[in-house]
């Protein structure tokens, strides 16, 4: 219990809680923004109204998620100062400008063009609307770029010196941004965002495919849109899931090189071994530094990590005890993440087989599996986040700044009170938000009565000539 009464642990819990809640929104909106851009582009190219119907369908879900992402993100940007002020003072000169770039290049881009993307189609014309959608998508990706650079620098710091005040001072910005693990992390995360979104889209489409096939079909339901959603999502799964497994493996090797303690924790090795097995399951006993009930495949650990059947794999015992990360959370979370990755690959392959047989839209079992897998991306992302962040403990900046030395001079009761407030508020509000999103997903996509060509001229610039301003009222009420 003592653990809970220390300000530093409460601050850690608070950060973990608010990030875990926050992360699901950007992950989803990164993928969804790109998806919306593709739909908009396809519509402009092919003039097929089905893409506009899909766009309008997912747009609503995007807005809800984006709103929640923004407000939970504001909290994050202030938390460095409130709970981690010593950390903020020390890493500010390095991480501050990177976060500053995120705000300047990403948040403003998203927020500035979001209004046009959501409400402005009739006001600015199709091409400019496509541009606005593209800017929102670019903003979400740019945000991912900078925030992963920040996170990677904390994992594999580079390009800095430490001054007499104990602050990290940049020497080489290129080395800071493109630190040794950055590109691996960025690729892994963006792919995760695309997969997560693909499985949500695929799950929703599968749900409506199943419902349609049960009989009662409302003629206003856009069957073509449902099929297209499912097809696009399954292509994404089939193509991206194997790439992600490959990227994950490369990231693992990178982590082995720069953060071997983290690998020891997530592989479940307390002792160094040569050759090492692959621990499939076990219960880490951290007090006695032993893995209980271990199920292990001999030699495979050496093969995967060293690409050699007789390679040595370091365990936690190769490092000072006070530097060990807690083993259980990364160990379990890693297995969840990898397991989901292979399940996603399975769905992708299954969809290819069904597609080949021409039964993609009739494969009931595949549809049911896709529904079950719909939220799997979120679980995988949060698991991956636990692997990487808990695996970095007990440091905030790996090997250079301890978590215990990063915390604010704030009393435990203040942190506890704000933590409780966050838990209550987040569950109530985001619970309501997620309910609204599910309600929205429960509705099928429909044919829109307004096709693009409603008589108003299409222009590249967004200025509405006076002659059609009268029409604005009517067209906007339908927008």
């Amino acid at each position, binding site marked *: 219990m003592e653990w809970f009464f220390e300000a530093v642990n409460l601050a850690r819990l608070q950060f973990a809680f608010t990030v875990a809640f926050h992360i699901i929104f950007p992950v989803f909106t990164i993928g969804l923004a790109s998806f919306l851009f593709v739909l908009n582009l396809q519509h402009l190219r092919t003039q097929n109204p089905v893409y506009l119907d899909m766009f309008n369908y997912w747009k609503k879900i995007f807005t809800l998620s984006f709103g929640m992402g*923004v407000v939970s993100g504001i909290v994050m940007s202030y938390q460095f100062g409130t709970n981690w002020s010593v950390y903020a003072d020390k890493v*500010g*000169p390095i991480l501050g400008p990177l976060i500053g770039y995120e705000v300047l*290049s990403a948040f403003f881009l998203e927020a500035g063009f979001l209004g046009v993307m959501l409400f402005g189609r009739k006001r600015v014309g199709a091409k400019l609307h496509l541009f606005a959608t593209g800017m929102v998508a670019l903003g979400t990706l740019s945000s991912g770029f900078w925030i992963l650079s920040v996170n990677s620098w904390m994992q594999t710091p580079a390009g800095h010196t430490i001054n007499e005040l104990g602050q990290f001072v*940049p020497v080489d910005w290129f080395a800071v941004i493109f630190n040794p693990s950055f590109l691996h992390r960025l690729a892994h995360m963006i792919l995760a965002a695309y997969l997560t979104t693909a499985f949500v889209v695929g799950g929703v489409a599968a749900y409506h495919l199943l419902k349609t096939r049960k009989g009662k079909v409302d003629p206003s339901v856009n069957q073509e849109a449902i099929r297209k959603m499912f097809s696009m999502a399954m292509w994404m799964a089939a193509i991206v899931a194997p790439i992600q497994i490959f990227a994950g493996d490369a990231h693992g090797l990178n982590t082995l090189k720069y953060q071997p303690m983290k690998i020891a924790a997530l592989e479940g090795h307390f002792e160094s071994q040569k050759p090492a097995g692959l621990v499939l399951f076990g219960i880490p006993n951290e007090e006695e530094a032993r893995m209980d009930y271990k199920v292990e495949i001999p030699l495979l650990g050496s093969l995967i990590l060293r690409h050699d059947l007789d390679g040595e794999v370091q365990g936690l015992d190769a490092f000072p005890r006070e530097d060990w990360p807690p083993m259980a959370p990364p160990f379990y979370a890693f297995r969840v993440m990898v397991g989901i990755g292979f399940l996603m690959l399975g769905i992708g392959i299954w969809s290819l087989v069904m597609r080949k047989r021409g039964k993609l839209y009739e494969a009931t079992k595949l549809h049911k599996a896709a529904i079950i897998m719909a939220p799997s991306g979120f679980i995988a992302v949060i698991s991956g986040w636990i692997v990487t962040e808990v695996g970095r403990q007990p440091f905030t900046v790996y090997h250079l700044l301890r978590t215990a030395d990063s915390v604010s001079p704030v009393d435990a009761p203040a942190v506890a009170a704000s933590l409780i407030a966050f838990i209550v508020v987040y569950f109530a509000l985001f619970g309501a938000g997620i309910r609204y999103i599910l309600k929205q997903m429960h509705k099928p996509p429909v044919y829109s009565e307004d096709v693009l060509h409603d008589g108003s001229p299409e222009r590249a610039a967004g200025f509405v000539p006076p002659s059609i301003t009268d029409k604005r009222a009517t067209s*906007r009420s339908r927008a």
Partner: protein
Amino acid sequence: MIDYALIWAGLIAFAVLAYVVLDGFDLGVGILFSCVKGKDNRDQMMNSVAPVWDGNETWLILGGAGLFAVFPLAYAIIMPALYIPIFTMLLALVFRGVAFEFRWKVTSEKNPWDKVFAGGSTVAAFAQGIVLGGLIEGIPVDGRAYAGGWWDWLTPFTIFTGVSLVIGYTLLGATWLVSKTEGALQETAKRHARTAAIGTLFCIAAVSLYTPFLHAHFAQRWFQWPELFYVIPVPLLVVACAWALFKGIRRPRGVNAYLAAVGIFTLSYIGLAISFFPYMIPSSVTLWEAAAPDVSLKFLLIGAAFLIPIILTYTAYSYWVFRGKVEQSSGYHN
């Protein structure tokens, strides 16, 4: 030798001012939700800010992240010192932000999210006023960290500045509505704008008369020759803006009243900046002490020099796209 810290102090000050005048009006619209009844009226009020509030709020992130980036010491001292009001503000903004999206999911006349929106806006404004008051009063510092307790911010003065900002944002919101609406709703907005204008001017006068006595260097700035010569235009211009404001409220269209209110806010803000300079945290930390090393300031400045004009351009464009009065029927999410 370029003084990067000074340039950045100016940019951060600009970001915070941009936040205050932009999010100020949409918070004000939220505060007014509790004074205006009827679903249609409230729909219109919501529609007048829905396309732009995201962008407005982003200036707050820039203020916070910018402080972290270029004045990490000030950030590390201010945040723990004003822990409770800042968290209260964040939670209130969370409530209010989701109300924007969720409100449209409820179709009945009585909408619980309306209360959330009004409450969140009011509490956020009040907490921001407390943060401002706490900063004006000053923060005890020991070495490189905050040296007080977690309730130190709670004083009669900070409560007063909290209430003042609620009234001030109400003025911004009401004048914004005067420019964006017509008919009965506009009349209501005019009435509230007048009341809020009187309240705001009273609060500004009270705070202005009180602050010089808080710190010796504040008094020196305002009451000593020749400094007096440079600062005296500020209160005179406030009077001119007040005249334009009351005149603007009476006019049926245009944004004059809102711009006059923005003028009053800007001048008050300049007044505060005159008092503060060269301190980041009055009497404890100057802006040069708080600044990050030049290498960090320079790196971010390159980006800011390119990006801030672009941001201002497309922000202005977005306001242009959604210019004019909001119609009663214009839908948001349906």
